[in-house]
């Protein structure tokens, strides 16, 4: 019965979606905002990756909100799983030498790759969120491959908060210098250089650290077991 009703409702929904989408042209140049960004992006922001300039400059406020959502998610997860008791140490079996050696070998490389991705966010595909997620995957590898080692919860929390604080402070500095919140107040430099695009690389490095520590904190919380 429940299935039948949901199928009927979904059928109606599908009909509506098709009706709406028939009117959206596919695969053609159409949007004025997007066109403006592609044409003016380099001049305005100095970042050769236009997606990055949209994410951090034109629509930087969204990104601040996004960072806040991740922060809220991490805090919320901690609050839901909070038990107020000391964590019990699970009985762990040492991983096989191959696994643990491979983890130790790969760990710095993955971290380096993550850092590369978020430092070069304004030049190549990628950015703070992607790089942070990659770095966090290195930490996940350590969680899995080298049982008993984990991140220090207090330090990841400090990192999360610092990341958010720096982001908002950068915005406020922009307000003080340029009159606009999140104004790009640093020199834009030469396009395609590492030191270019003003506050974009700074913000992306901050976001990278913040995302990595947040995801590591989430993983740590999910691993943690109390009686």
């Amino acid at each position: 019965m429940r299935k039948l009703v949901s199928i009927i409702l979904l059928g109606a929904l599908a009909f509506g979606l098709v009706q709406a989408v028939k009117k959206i042209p596919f695969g053609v140049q159409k949007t004025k905002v997007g066109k403006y960004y592609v044409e003016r992006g380099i001049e305005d922001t100095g970042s050769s990756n236009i997606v990055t300039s949209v994410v951090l400059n034109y629509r930087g406020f969204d990104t601040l909100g996004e960072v806040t959502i991740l922060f809220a998610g991490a805090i919320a997860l901690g609050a839901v799983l909070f038990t107020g008791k000391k964590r019990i140490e699970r009985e762990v079996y040492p991983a096989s030498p191959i696994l643990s050696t491979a983890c130790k070998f790969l760990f710095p490389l993955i971290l380096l790759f993550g850092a590369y991705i978020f430092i070069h966010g304004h030049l190549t595909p990628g950015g703070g969120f992607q790089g942070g997620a990659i770095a966090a995957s290195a930490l996940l590898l350590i969680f899995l491959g080298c049982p008993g080692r984990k991140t220090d919860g207090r330090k990841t929390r400090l990192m999360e908060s610092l990341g958010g604080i720096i982001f908002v402070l950068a915005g406020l500095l922009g307000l003080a210098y340029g009159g606009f919140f999140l104004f790009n107040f640093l020199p834009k430099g030469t396009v395609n250089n590492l030191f270019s695009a003003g506050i974009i690389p700074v913000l992306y490095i901050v976001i990278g650290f913040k995302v990595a520590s947040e995801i590591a904190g989430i993983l740590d919380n999910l691993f943690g077991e109390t009686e």
Partner: protein
Amino acid sequence: MVVSPVLLIAVPLLLAFIAPLCGKAAKYIPPAGALFNLILSVILIPTVLKSPMIVSIGGFPPPFCINLFVGPLGIFFAALISLAGFLISIYALSYIRERAVGKYHTLYLLLLTGATGVVLTGDIFNLFVFYEILCISSYALTAHNAHWHRHGTEAAVKYLIQGSVGSAFILLAIGMLYGFFGTLNMADLAKHIARAHSSVLFIPLTFFIAGFGVEAAIFPLNAWLPDAHSVSPAPISAIFSGIAIEIGVYAIMRVVFTLFGAPLSVMSVLLIVGLLTLLVGEICAFRQNNIKRMSAYSSIGQIGLIVFAFGLATKSGITAGLFQITSHALSKILLFLTIGYMIYSIRMKNYPDKYVTEIEINSLNGLGKKMPLTSLGFAIAAFSLIGFPPFIGFSSKLLIVKAALLKGGIYAVLMGIALIATVIEGAYFLKVVQGIYFRKGEVEGIKENNVFILVPFFILAALIIFAGIYPGILTKILNSSSGELLNRIGYIGRLPG
């Protein structure tokens, strides 16, 4: 030199990021943030009433960057949110004192920030982002202390499932609008929509109403509300009922009026939906034994009345709806806070180790003598919600009746039905008030002596009575706010270029 309204969002955000580092002092951060916002928004009101402020973020000309649109409506909501947030956070200073305390205060401040962002932004995707901040903190706060609170967990799971389906619909609608018109700025979108053929607009509009309707708890999307509002701790119930669902209504109205120009068919549907929500809410409330669940259903009813008033789509109707939002926010917050204090006192005496957030109506019997101030606060809130003079609820309901009669015809008949629902509301609240004052109960050794909890009661009760006697103080800002919603051309015209 005018202060930038962007500080209304930036400063609470900054404080929210600082809060986890503060340890035990974290509980003083939400009141500080809310007080800052309250002062700033009150300072900004005169400027905004003269002409709305457009604040570009990032320093590019709109529509190429996100901009805040701080009109009378936005600043009115921002002031209401920060006032409510301030009073509730003072109350929570001593009410929330066990288990995950620090995280509670951070999430609470994030909730306020999200709500403020929703009402101030002028960009539809940015609105969605802030709306999500609001939702995620709400899910988590519903399940506050989930480890000791099985009902809280269950309610939060329900809320999260329904809420995230709603969010998906909003995002789909935003994507469609972007596909049609290639812009996300609300003024720019409104300009394009005014020229577009109405057949392409039907689906996005439906999706928006369905998506935001989950948060606004309009019928039939309100299944989560009675659970979430009744099982969460009292300050959370208060902020949900007083602010969160109103934000849902705000978002619907902003989309319907400003973006889509309030087509008559949609407004009629909203009117009927509002009426149904009102009837369903009040009838369900009448049948409850649990005091918080009853108040939660009463919130559904009040939201129905608000949507009904907006559905009239006249200036007087919208003003009345906004007035009703104010009156519902103040009264319902006072109601939930007083109930919360009663539950807290009874619990502390009978079973201090258990984590209890709900109680049967009968258990409140006889509290009138033991907790006179709290009971008085409860009675004031209940009378205001029913609509007795001289409380603020009377003025707002009177305005709605006037607006409906002004429109005449079928609307007057529908208003009659709405008034029947109000009578039901009166019946169940009076039953509780009678029980508190005139029935005998087993409440011995209960005292009220916590200043931090009593002060918000005084302020809220004073506001309810004052605004009830002098409704004129609100009329000016509410009139300009309803003007802002109706004057779509003016909203579009604010867009430079």
